[in-house]
């Protein structure tokens, strides 16, 4: 039985110049109780489509039906919105009340439920998302993942048949993402129809059906296995392969006869179990061809000595954010900092350019204490460039060029020097000169972020720090930014520090990693050292690259494989080594 149906759906955004066709003839039929994932790059029309399902948008032409109720008919709209809820991307911007309980009640108040019944439903909803202990909490004290679950509870309380999720995990850390995804899977088990829009392929592999959108059209519509076996199309529509599928392809290229559409770890393990024999591998075969110790050939550029930071010291709100941090960063290295939300990552990087002052301890740049001389503050901030999370939110000028020039101007460079720096910074991030005079607010999300990064690069810092540079971007935007950062690192030989939740990104780029937990250093070392602590990292709210999990699973059933492998290429090599 179908629950959602669209018929010849067309939608256009009207601007003064052009009519932009966001949805082009969509015909869709979604089965009741199914789990449908919608993929597609930014601007492909996914969100616009989703907003038609509960009548937030009304078709330009064509029709949308929910349970055979047409969204065009105004009399149906409240019934439709009650049976088809929607969870949005930004956890902050969908919580209305100042208390969790009140927020869950918001929808119920709107549809006129009696207070007694409301209380029952709030209990039920908070239990379903495992947030029953946060009834009286203030939303702003919750983590992103918790806020999203509150948003889900607010919808659940209205007893919907169908919930649309519009990139619900895009702004979350790994633990938040895991909690939200497992909540979604519980809902599916309860029989609720789920439509999930996402940029994370790993979230799509369990779907009953994947719909891929491009330029406002549905271009693929199939089960995950079939979707991810068509690599040509996946590339064409700017998507990625799940890590395990990528490994299957890599193994295939290296000559192993393996189906290219393996999606999950368990499938991969099952397959390898049959192809490779446990006896083939012995402990002696371990090939530790991986670099374990970082070769140190350069000077220390940054030294962090006994750093402590306590917020609101001496008040009831006192909180220790950093405890005895000792860490050296070498010139030309690429350092990754990981840790769950609230582990002290942001506090730490804000110390590095003197935005925050240590409660005790010191930070040295090339042997000089950065907090010693206030007059040098400007030069410290020029030498240590810090790109904040969602840096595009700090753009303010009337043109791209002017915005990038803001930093160098503050540094007091000459007009000529400023121009030179701006042009070269924008070139580094791949923004061509046709964009220089455009308003930064007219650019796409990925372009805005690159302009914002250029704003820091224009100061030509010796150390570049990036806080979550890929957060909230689609796969193609993610890849572009990372490639540019990598390219930059190679070209300028500058020191780069990257804070990220994406372990795959960290694994690909960095040569050493610092793991923070509750304000303390938990591990330091090369990626292969750090990622070998798979389950310890998981315990402190982090995830490791999917490949690490696979290696552990293979070890469990008796294959002796090095546990410090974390990239697809290394894994493929190691697996084939067994066979030899």
């Amino acid at each position, binding site marked *: 039985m179908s629950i959602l149906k669209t018929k010849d759906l067309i939608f256009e955004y009207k601007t003064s110049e052009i009519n932009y066709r966001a949805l082009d003839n969509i015909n869709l039929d979604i089965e009741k109780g199914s789990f449908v994932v919608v993929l597609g790059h930014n601007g492909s029309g996914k969100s616009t489509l989703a907003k038609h399902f509960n009548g937030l948008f009304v078709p330009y032409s064509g029709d949308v039906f929910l349970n055979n109720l047409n969204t065009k008919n105004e009399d149906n709209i409240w019934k439709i919105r009650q049976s088809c809820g*929607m969870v949005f991307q930004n956890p902050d911007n969908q919580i209305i009340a100042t208390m969790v309980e009140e927020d869950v009640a918001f929808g119920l108040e709107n549809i006129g439920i009696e207070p007694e019944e409301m209380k029952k439903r709030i209990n039920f909803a908070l239990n379903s998302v495992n947030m029953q202990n946060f009834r009286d909490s203030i939303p702003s004290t919750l983590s992103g993942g918790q806020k999203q679950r509150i948003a889900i509870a607010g919808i659940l309380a209205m007893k919907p048949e169908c919930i649309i999720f519009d990139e619900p995990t895009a702004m979350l850390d790994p633990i938040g993402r895991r909690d939200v995804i497992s909540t979604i899977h519980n809902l599916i088990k309860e029989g609720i129809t789920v439509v999930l829009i996402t940029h994370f392929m790993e979230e799509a592999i369990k779907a009953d059906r994947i719909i891929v959108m491009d330029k406002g059209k549905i271009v693929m519509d199939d089960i995950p296995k079939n979707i991810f076996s068509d690599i040509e199309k996946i590339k064409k529509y700017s998507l990625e392969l799940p890590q395990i599928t990528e490994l299957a392809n890599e193994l295939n290229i290296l000559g192993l006869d393996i189906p290219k559409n393996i999606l999950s770890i368990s499938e991969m393990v099952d397959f390898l179990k049959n192809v490779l024999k446990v006896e083939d591998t012995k402990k002696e075969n371990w090939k530790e061809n991986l670099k374990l110790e970082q070769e140190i050939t350069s000077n220390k550029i940054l030294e962090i000595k006994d750093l402590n930071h306590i917020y609101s010291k001496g008040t009831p709100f006192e909180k220790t954010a950093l405890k005895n941090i000792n860490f050296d960063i070498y010139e030309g290295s690429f350092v990754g900092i990981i840790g769950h939300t609230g582990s002290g990552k942001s506090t730490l990087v804000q110390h590095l350019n003197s935005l925050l002052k240590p409660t005790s301890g010191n930070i040295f740049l090339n042997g000089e204490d950065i907090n010693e001389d206030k007059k040098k503050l400007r030069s410290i901030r020029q030498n240590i460039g810090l790109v904040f999370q969602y840096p595009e939110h700090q753009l303010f000028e009337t043109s791209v060029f002017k915005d990038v020039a803001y930093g160098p101007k503050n540094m007091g460079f000459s007009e000529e020097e400023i121009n030179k720096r701006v042009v070269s910074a924008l070139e580094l991030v791949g923004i061509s000169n046709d964009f220089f005079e455009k308003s930064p607010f007219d650019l796409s999300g990925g372009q805005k972020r690159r302009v914002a990064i250029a704003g820091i690069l224009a100061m030509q810092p010796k150390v570049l720090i990036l806080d979550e540079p890929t957060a909230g971007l689609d796969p193609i935007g993610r890849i572009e930014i990372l490639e540019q950062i990598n390219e930059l690192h190679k070209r300028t030989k500058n020191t780069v520090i990257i804070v990220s939740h994406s372990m795959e990104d960290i694994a690909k780029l960095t040569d050493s990693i610092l793991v923070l937990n509750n304000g303390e250093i938990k591990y330091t070392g090369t990626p292969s050292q750090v990622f070998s602590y798979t389950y310890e990292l998981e315990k402190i709210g982090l995830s490791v690259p999917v490949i690490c999990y696979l290696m552990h699973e293979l070890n469990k059933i008796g294959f002796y494989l090095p546990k410090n492998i974390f990239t697809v290429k290394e894994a493929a090599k190691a697996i084939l080594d067994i066979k030899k």
Partner: protein
Amino acid sequence: MKSVTLGQYYPIESKIHSLDARVKLIGVIIFIISLFVATNFLAYGIVGIFLYFCIKLAKLPLKFVIKGVRALGYVIVFTMVVNVIFSPGEIILLDLGFFNITLEAVLWGILITLRFVLLIISSSLLTLTTSPINLTGAIETLLSPFKKIKLPVHEIAMMMTIALRFIPTLMEETDKITKAQMSRGAEFDSGSIAKRVKSLIPILIPLFVSAFRRADDLAMAMEARCYRGDINRTKLKELRYTKNDVIAYAIMFIFLLLVILTNFIYY
């Protein structure tokens, strides 16, 4: 974070905390009336003792409450000085040529300052002991008779709720944008006033852009959850008076009566 205690909800359990927010709101209004009725030191004594008694009953640390007043220290001193200098009087204490400082003026200055300080403390007592959500609820119920004259009471309360909800979010955002611009070499605490005001532009524009974006998102999220104003709406928490609330009303009435009576004792 700055240590502004003025008006920040202090979440503990006490007799005052558990009173209906309407009682506290009306209580503060009665208290303010009593401050204006009080014209002699006896009355101020009663008012002061009553307030002290309320603070104790609310289990608030006295230091914490006074610290909040200190934030307004300059304004208080200024009020005092202005009143002492410009109030008329006959008994001259100090002759300074341009103007005289008189006994009446000094007494008046002290009285006005006391009134001001007590006013600050009483209103901060309200917000210290009442969660924002209860306060908006109380305002909505107390204003509801005005719906008849087309006052958008529900909308006002909803606006207040949303404002309260987003204050911490926007403060965090301001902090982040400020730091981000400082990382680009911005300085906000040097140069002439014009220069300083200009240096705020890189903070204000992103802040406005973000506030509008949030407003857009929020409107969408509210609509998706069937919000359509005050039509057919129920409320999770209906305010209901308890025995303690009635007692509190009685105490406040007696208190006001006492303050008024002091005027007759004096004349």
